[in-house]
């Protein structure tokens, strides 16, 4: 159910990000969502791709430090206050968010997709579903 996100350790030097994307592109792996967090020295690239296992092996063989992390993907109405509502539910349930990133997906659906990394994915999913929030499964994210 939960989505597998790849985290890639990147030294802050030119060409590293370009290399990740090139390597994936050459293997016909599609990036669905990404986010970068960085300090002056290093960054962590977070990726959702359509073929996480294959991408993991590939990047590893290219010398990158990669790890997989479970995250949850939530469909949020693309309108003011949409994200606030979801955050309020998580706060109420005492679930800490380590990080999140969002992107506005297909414009026809009027939904935004938000990727959450929380301490307890399963609990978060349960809480959100009970409140009627649409949590999407990995196949949906990989193929959208």
């Amino acid at each position: 159910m939960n989505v597998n996100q790849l985290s890639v350790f990147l030294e802050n030097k030119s060409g590293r990000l370009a290399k990740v994307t090139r390597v994936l592109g050459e293997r016909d792996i599609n990036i669905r969502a990404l986010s970068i967090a960085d300090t002056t020295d290093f960054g962590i690239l977070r990726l959702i791709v359509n073929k996480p296992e294959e991408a993991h092996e590939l990047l590893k063989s290219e010398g990158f430090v990669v790890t997989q992390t479970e995250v949850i993907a939530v469909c949020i109405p693309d309108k003011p206050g949409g994200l606030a509502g979801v955050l309020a539910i998580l706060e109420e349930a005492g679930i800490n968010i380590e990080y999140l990133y969002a992107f506005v997906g297909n414009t026809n659906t009027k939904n935004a997709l938000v990727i959450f990394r929380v301490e307890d994915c399963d609990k978060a999913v349960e809480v959100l579903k009970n409140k009627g929030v649409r949590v999407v499964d990995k196949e949906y994210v990989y193929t959208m």
Partner: protein
Amino acid sequence: MIWDEKYECMSRQDMRELQKERLREVVQRVYQKVPYYRQLFDRIGLKPEDIKELKDLEKIPFTSKETLRDNYPYGLFAEPLSKVSRVHASSGTTGKPTVVGYTRQDLETWAELIARVVVQAGVTREDVVQICFGYGLFTGGFGLHYGLEKMGATIIPASVGNTRRQMMLMEDFGTTALVSTPSYALYMAEVAKEMGINRENLKLRLGLFGAEPWSESMRDQLKSKWEITATDNYGLSEIIGPGVSGECLEFGGLHISEDHFIAEVIDPETGETLDYGEEGELVFTTLTKEAFPILRYRTKDISILREDPCACGRTTARMKKVTGRTDDMLIIRGVNVFPSQIESVLMEIKGVAPHYQIIVDRKGFLDNLEVLVELEEEMFTGSFRDLEAMEKNIQRQLSTVLSIDVDIKLVEPKTIERSEGKSKRVIDKRTLNG
């Protein structure tokens, strides 16, 4: 087993007598045969006859690396080239190399000394020894080669380079003992892992490491990564090359072949001779070398001497494992820092690969110490907090030991240059920028 009981287990009294006799001889010989020493003695009014007791050695001025450079290439040879069978040279980091020579007898002596060192490190005639030292001007390859051959082990003269092939040889030829620099052995372990080599298919049981200073924590790494007994051996081309001293399996220091060399420890600042148990710079005098005798050579290596008996049965004095040099001491904002201190701290920290580089630079008017540390793949959780915590932890531990602030930079695995010979751990940009 002891290779040469007569000399390695001689009583301290007999050893001193032997050294005294040989010292008198060598002083006479260099005075007669090496113009540099004759002029030096004459200038300070010292006569070879003045050197009667071991204590008199202190009257002789030191010889330094600069002396070798000034007399490049053959100026300090005590024999004509017709009697010199081989030359070796050490790469000078600045300018010309320093050149040393060996007569047939010197090569014989050298092989004997290496035989002692390898036997005390546990090598037997049954062993298959892979020598991953360069065969060339560097003394490491040929030095170990002829000593091991004399001792009777089976040698694989693999030399340096092509690490994957080295690993193939190790696996297919059934190597039981590895001769290399400690940093190269760590690199080989990494390559072995990459290649998916199964430890059970290797017969390796011994590692004989030398040619660069290394810490006890590095020894622990080598032992755990390779599952071997790891010993240190020491030497420098100016004295003879490897074979000056080596560890026995009691690990209480490196036994010095004192029938061929007199070891002293001096205060590097004042030049004053220090007692057993005191830390200072090692100084060697060769007693039997024919082609290239040298008096009181300053090694710049820091050690401590001891002469208490060793449980292995050898009676020769021992020197503490060299972990630093007087010239690799960095002075950062007025604080003395040795790369070996940094190495020791890093090796103790989980999740850090045993590869690092120290970069000293000047930011504004202040010295800045940056340590590049390779992240180990297993330690990457994908969490930013974990990485930052790790950086802070390394930073805190280093700052505590060094008592100055240190910048840590985590870098991707296998990005710090691997060396097949002596590794280059320190880049001091202050000197480059003038």
